[in-house]
């Protein structure tokens, strides 16, 4: 019940009621965007946003930079592991 699913806002359907159409893996439905709208991020700038959709509400914008940063950490961890493996091979005859 507490899971959400990423979707992209494709259009604003009712700016007053803060409703927008979102595309979730090809399925389109109307959602409420009250939680992602602010003075810095007005309704008009929401189209194109990737958001986490939960029970018909956009609950958060997905921060693409942060996602990339997390993946980068894991990428580097993999490289370190490879190095360590190589090192172990070279010390153990």
């Amino acid at each position: 019940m507490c899971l959400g699913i990423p979707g992209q806002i494709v259009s604003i359907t009712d700016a007053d009621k803060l409703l927008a159409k979102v595309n979730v893996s090809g399925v389109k439905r109307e959602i409420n965007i009250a939680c992602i709208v602010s003075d810095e991020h007005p309704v008009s700038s929401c189209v194109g946003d990737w958001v986490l959709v939960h029970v018909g509400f956009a609950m958060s914008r997905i921060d693409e930079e942060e996602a990339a940063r997390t993946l980068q950490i894991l990428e580097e961890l993999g490289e370190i592991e490879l190095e360590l493996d190589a090192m172990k091979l070279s010390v153990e005859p």
Partner: protein
Amino acid sequence: MKFVDEFRDTQKAQTLTKAIHAIACRLASSQTKPLQIMEFCGGHTHTIFRYGIEQMLPDSIEMVHGPGCPVCVLPMGRVDDCVTLAELPNVIFTTFGDAMRVPGSKKSLLQAKADGADIRMTYSPMDALSLARANPSKEVIFFGLGFETTMPSTALTVLQAEREGITNFSLFCNHITTVPTIKAVLDSPDMKLDGFLAPGHVAMVIGERPFDFIAKDYHKPIVVTGFEPLDILHSLWMLLQQIEQGRSEVENQYSRIVQANGNTAALEAISQVFEIREFFEWRGLGSIDHSGVRMKQAYTNFDAEKKFAVPNLKIADPKSCQCGEVVKGVIKPWDCKIFGTKCNPENPMGALMVSSEGACAAYFNNGYNEQKTA
């Protein structure tokens, strides 16, 4: 799908598993028992089972599946209240699908529907509001349950109903709060947890700071965690690093979604509509102080508890149920005497057997039932 496939990458999962094994191996010499890590949220339990994460972990790490499945902790009396409301004449009772099969003392909502009550599953509380608009001669009640993750959606729906002057919509508010519940788990005398995975989507709403007390007062490390398999493994690795380095802090693995201060608009909607209840009754855990919310006086017209006569009966859990012990991590599901026999997903006795986010159903559906005799 955006940032879903990336966080299911098997190669990265293998790297993380290796890194986890390496730390666990270093820690093992100073351990007398396995490290017990609780994932609080049922959504995490679901991911852990779906991707077989426990099998990837070393024996020295044990996952304890916490009480964070709103459906699983619903007491029987509350289900009875729902059935009473749903069976009132002229009522359309709406709910998230998960709640349909939870056993009440006489019947579940699903059985009540079969008996003729007008009960409809909705994906969103907004769908319930649409039903109210379309059926002005009926009373539409939405069964609001869930932690802070779902609270903003029901609060915003009530606010929308008020703005539109819709008078035939009301909320049966059964929302529960995360922090007092974690505190109750930590204060339980038979609890020996070594760390927590914090519920990512609750943190998305309330932010990281409400979890500080776990690190500061209870000296347990805690990591705010996302819901893909790499998120869980990454967080476990972060937790083990904290344990190895003797730190206890709140860290955020789910930074693509969770901001330190949470979501302002969501928090405003919550505080506008809801207020803390003195206590709230949980299945398996008993009554926990301040662990639920009710609607504020100003929204009485949208409050099903005020609009209709809710019996509010207290029904004790069946004696043979050990859901409480499972939820606190004191016993494993297969230690419950009726696990897999009198209690199974077809015929759940306890709520942990109902939802796929419940520990007992997850164990049962993944073939762990044999372990009982192993």
